């Protein structure tokens, strides 16, 4: 098999010198298996074509291609969320550019082992939630299962809908010094990372198309198609959408969940989107309750239902466990499947394989001793100093440094003694594991290849025809040379995994897309998503209004004596009323604007109407609807966030003017992208409704203040500037603006895209195509409100537009907004009850 790889046509004829230059700095660590080189520093055969290709491209071309892969990751917004002190920010998950190559015969072993292990863990789950024979016959200690916080007692005695607990399984594996693969961890709760593998693959295969083609890399799409089909098959009612139950936008893998949802055509749902009635699960949508029968669960069981599990959870679905117990919803993986995801259980896996399957483990796991059995604990104590001590379950232990796995050789004698005592006192909380070293693979760093240790996560899914393993994986590479498995817990980069496939033909033909796009079937818009899109629209438009006002002020402040200019004072009051400036003491006299006066609107995140806060709110809404906002539009928002976060220094009036102009330019980029790239289903309409309502209400306020007959001189010109309508005005009137002309243009003119009438027409159009939630006898509140405003605007003349009328319009617009909320959104506000005993 290796011969066939060597004989395949190479785009890059072997060039010994170039190859030597590329590998000049590459020195495998002593005593460690290296994926690229054998102990004698010869290249392993399945890597040769890739290394020759890299050598042929040369350093500069390689750097350029890797940079293009990075750009792809950045542009698509692949981010791994890390929490910071302020409650969350995002940083990109770096792509390690060299793929991990796995030879076909090696892969066959991994595949078979993953299937065996998935099958085995599935059977253990069925037993501990069912007959518990493994407990009674001593195969698994009762207290090992009872101690796992993910053993969900509410699910004992329940056979899950679809008949099986485990449908998605992942194993973290690594290769030891002897060349054998080892299982380091099992993932049965809600394995993450599969979505990233697709994005990594797209990025790298586009950067290295000819190499990817020649190497005959196994494709990933088939796996995902089977997975999606399997999820759909669990539906009892045909054509229902499958949901992906997410912990929400603040989870560290929120991006991946949104990505998977879009890729697999799943409905991205949070707990609040779902409700249970008579043991059936429904999605709250803008068209009322829609049933859902299958959920891909990315939310830990403990948080999935506050009534059955952790009562403090605000992100779950009250009653979900009841629906699962009644067999009305198939949850993948079943609630409680995390009960076999523990280090403690690993020590029992060899025995369980023999007991349940009648065979040995195809891939050993790290030698593990659970200290909850007194005899085992006593036996491992003498060798403790050469071992790793780790928590038996998922939660960290305060006695351990960093609360997680700790090599005893790394800690002081005092800590070691403390740990000994802790293990003697409560051994059941700990496992002792063999300290193992992981193999290394090449990473590109500073223009050369270097060996770095890695952990590979492989994924398996249960299909009608048995378990299928994704031919690839999620490979985390360390940024340091320390090859001990225990050091790989934190950080690193992610590498694509190329499983070499000798059977697959197609080398030399045109590369089909590495993953086939999968279509979404029907439009189901959850109420929460609609609400977030609506508010995204409102915040975006509010930020635009703020930027326009600030810019108008900045341009006026360049003139002298602005502090005494009554028009400047009027504009400042408009900003203050919008919450963009701190409230002024009326006794304090006019604003002092030259100097610090205007800066808070640009700088102060505590001001609810200031640019930083509005943009942050817009981002928060967008991040909760990531599956609906196009990657380009999302990127425009991120650029906007970055721009607002870094205003120019020093912040002179001119700098403020230019800053606002840049902000407005990015706004129109977002507006354009959402206009052109979002499909015209209901989601887009809610976004548009938000924009239109906000713009209309703002125009009413501006016209009332600046169109007031008592307003200072120059107010009407400023009003035209704010309404971006100077050019329209001049094309109609050659004169100095008169109030009625301006009101005609900004309030009543149905062809001016900034006028109130124009917004009212759009609002009515959008509202009329939204689902009608009324019972048919009377129009819904939303329809009534939208139609009334539009009708009222048609029957008045410009001279009738006075302040009273403008106030009425503003009030009617807010009523429309409330009506939309009542008719289509969820009413937020979850409270937990509970009372004390004494």
């Amino acid at each position, binding site marked *: 098999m290796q011969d066939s790889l060597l004989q395949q046509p190479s785009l890059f004829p072997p060039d010994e010198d170039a190859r030597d230059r590329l590998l000049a700095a590459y020195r495998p660590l002593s005593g460690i298996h290296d994926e690229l080189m054998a102990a004698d520093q010869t290249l392993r055969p399945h890597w040769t074509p890739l290394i020759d290709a890299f050598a042929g491209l040369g350093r500069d071309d390689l750097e350029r291609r890797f940079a293009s892969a990075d750009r792809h990751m950045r542009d698509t917004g692949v981010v791994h969320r890390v929490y910071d002190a302020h409650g969350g920010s995002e940083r990109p998950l770096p792509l390690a550019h060299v793929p991990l190559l796995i030879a076909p015969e090696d892969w066959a072993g991994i595949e078979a082992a993953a299937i065996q292990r998935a099958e085995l863990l599935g059977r253990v789950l069925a037993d*501990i939630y069912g007959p*518990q024979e493994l*407990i*009674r*016959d*001593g195969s698994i*200690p*009762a*207290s090992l*299962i*009872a*101690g796992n916080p993910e053993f969900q*007692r*509410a699910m*004992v005695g329940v056979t899950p809908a679809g008949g099986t607990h485990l449908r998605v399984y992942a194993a973290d594996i690594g290769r030891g010094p002897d060349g054998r693969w080892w299982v380091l961890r099992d993932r049965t709760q809600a394995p993450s990372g599969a979505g990233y593998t697709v994005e990594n693959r797209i990025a790298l295969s586009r950067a290295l198309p000819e190499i990817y083609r020649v190497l005959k890399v196994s494709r990933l799409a088939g796996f995902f198609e089977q997975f999606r089909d399997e999820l759909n098959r669990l539906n009892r009612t045909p054509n229902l959408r499958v949901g992906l139950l997410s912990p929400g936008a603040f989870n560290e893998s929120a991006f991946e969940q949104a990505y998977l949802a879009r890729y697999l055509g799943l409905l991205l749902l949070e707990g609040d989107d779902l409700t249970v*009635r*008579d043991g059936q699960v429904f999605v709250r949508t803008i068209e009322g309750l829609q049933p859902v029968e299958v959920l891909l669960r990315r939310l830990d069981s403990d948080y999935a239902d*506050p*009534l*059955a599990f*952790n*009562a403090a959870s605000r992100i779950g679905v*009250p*009653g979900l466990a*009841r629906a699962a117990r009644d067999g009305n919803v198939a949850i993948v993986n079943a609630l409680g499947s995390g009960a076999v995801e523990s280090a403690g259980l690993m020590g029992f896996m060899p025995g369980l394989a023999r007991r349940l399957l009648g065979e040995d483990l195809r891939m050993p796991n790290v030698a593990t001793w659970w200290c*909850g*059995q*007194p005899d085992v604990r006593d036996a491992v104590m003498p060798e403790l100093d050469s071992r790793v001590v780790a928590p038996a379950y998922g939660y960290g232990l*305060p006695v351990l440094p960093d609360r997680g796995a700790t090599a005893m050789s790394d800690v002081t004698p005092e800590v070691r003694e403390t740990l000994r005592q802790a293990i003697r*006192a*409560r051994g*059941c*909380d700990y496992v002792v594991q063999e300290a193992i070293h992981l193999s290394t693979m090449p990473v590109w760093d500073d223009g050369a290849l270097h060996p770095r240790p890695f952990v590979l996560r492989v994924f398996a899914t249960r299909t009608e025809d048995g378990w299928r393993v994704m031919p690839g994986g999620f490979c985390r590479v360390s940024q340091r040379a320390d090859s001990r498995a225990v050091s790989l817990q934190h950080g690193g980069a992610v590498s694509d995994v190329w499983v070499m496939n000798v059977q697959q033909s197609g080398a030399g033909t045109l590369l089909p897309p590495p993953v086939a796009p999968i279509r979404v079937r029907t439009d189901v818009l959850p109420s929460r998503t609609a609400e977030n899109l609506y508010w995204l629209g409102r915040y975006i438009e509010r930020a635009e209004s703020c930027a326009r006002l600030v810019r108008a002020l900045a341009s006026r402040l360049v003139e002298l004596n602005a502090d005494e200019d009554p028009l400047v004072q009027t504009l400042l009051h408009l900003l203050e009323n919008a919450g963009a400036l701190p409230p002024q003491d009326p006794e304090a006299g006019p604003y002092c604007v030259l100097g610090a006066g205007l800066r808070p609107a640009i700088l102060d995140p505590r001001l609810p109407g200031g640019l930083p806060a509005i943009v942050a709110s817009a981002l928060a809404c967008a991040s909760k609807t990531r599956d609906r906002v196009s990657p380009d539009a999302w990127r425009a928002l991120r650029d906007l966030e970055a721009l607002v976060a870094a205003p120019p220094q020093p912040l002179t009036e001119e700098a403020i003017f230019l800053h606002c102009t840049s902000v407005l330019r990015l706004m129109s980029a977002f507006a354009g992208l959402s206009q052109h790239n979002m499909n015209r289903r209901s989601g887009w309409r809610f976004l548009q409704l938000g924009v239109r309502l906000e713009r209309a209400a703002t125009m009413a306020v501006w016209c009332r203040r600046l169109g007031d007959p008592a307003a200072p001189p120059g107010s009407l010109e400023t009003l035209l500037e704010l309404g971006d309508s100077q050019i329209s005005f001049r094309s109609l009137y050659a004169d100095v603006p008169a109030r009625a002309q301006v009101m005609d243009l900004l309030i009543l003119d149905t062809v001016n895209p900034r006028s109130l009438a124009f917004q009212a027409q759009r609002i009515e159009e959008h509202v009329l195509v939204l689902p009608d939630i009324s019972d048919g006898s009377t129009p819904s509140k939303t329809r009534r409100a939208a139609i009334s405003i539009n009708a009222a605007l048609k029957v008045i003349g410009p001279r009738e537009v006075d302040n009273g009328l403008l106030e009425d319009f503003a009030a009617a617009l807010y009523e429309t907004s409330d009506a939309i909320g009542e008719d289509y959104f969820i*009413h937020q*506000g*979850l*409270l*937990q*009850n*509970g*009372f*004390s*005993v*004494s």
Partner: protein
Amino acid sequence: MLYDVTQITTYRYGSAVPISRHACRLIPISRPGLRVIAASLDIAPAPRERRDGLDFFGNQITEILIETPHDDLILGMRARIEVTPPPLPTFEETPPWEDVIAAAAVVRDLSPDSPAHFLYPSARVPVSAAIAAYCRASFKPGRPIVAALADLTIRMHADFRYDPEATDVATPVDAAFGQRAGVCQDFAHIMICGLRSLGLPAAYVSGFLRTIPPPGRRRLEGADATHAWVSVWCGAEAGWIGFDPTNAVLAREDHIVLAVGRDYADVAPVIGVIRGIGDHTVAVQVDVVPVV
């Protein structure tokens, strides 16, 4: 002893709640030493959905969904209960506490009564080195388990102050231990924490306590309260035995079990999720009337 017990729980909401969903553990159920002759739970407003069943630990659980807008929720439980505590072992003849730890570690049983469930930190009871050290003083090497537990129960009563102002339902165990004061829930959690730190299986019991009025006074109606204590697995033979550190007594005829779990979170009388704005208040009125 025969008792008539009523417990009326009233929630008042700051503004009308359009929809609410609750899981209630308010109805007692027969178990060893306790026979429920009759029991009922009346709910107002009437729920649209109601399901009565048992939770994992065998407690009665009532799941309700109310869709009528409501300003208050009234849960009224009435029961007639007979308490006949099983005979106690002779303290000094119970096994050494170390043997109980070893036996609990290797049980081959995951049924609700198994000590395996009660060995670990739980939602409201973490591991605490300070509490472990305090409890350890009662556990001299080789001491019979029930003798050691009785000693701990008495020490806790002496060292801790009963003070309803000192804690609330959410006070962490460490904080209550630090101030050596609290209510029965805190006493129970502290004792459970210390026992589990040693490796002993300890459960949380919620229920009712018969209160005996001062001599010459009549029992005041509604003045009784819900109570909590600790149940400890004392080996396969002795089984589970109740200790009440708040009152320095064993849980016997005066202690009426409502629910058992790993800590308060498992037996919370009402867990609820409501949609709505504003605060709420809770009032609980309990009457424990001996039937003579």
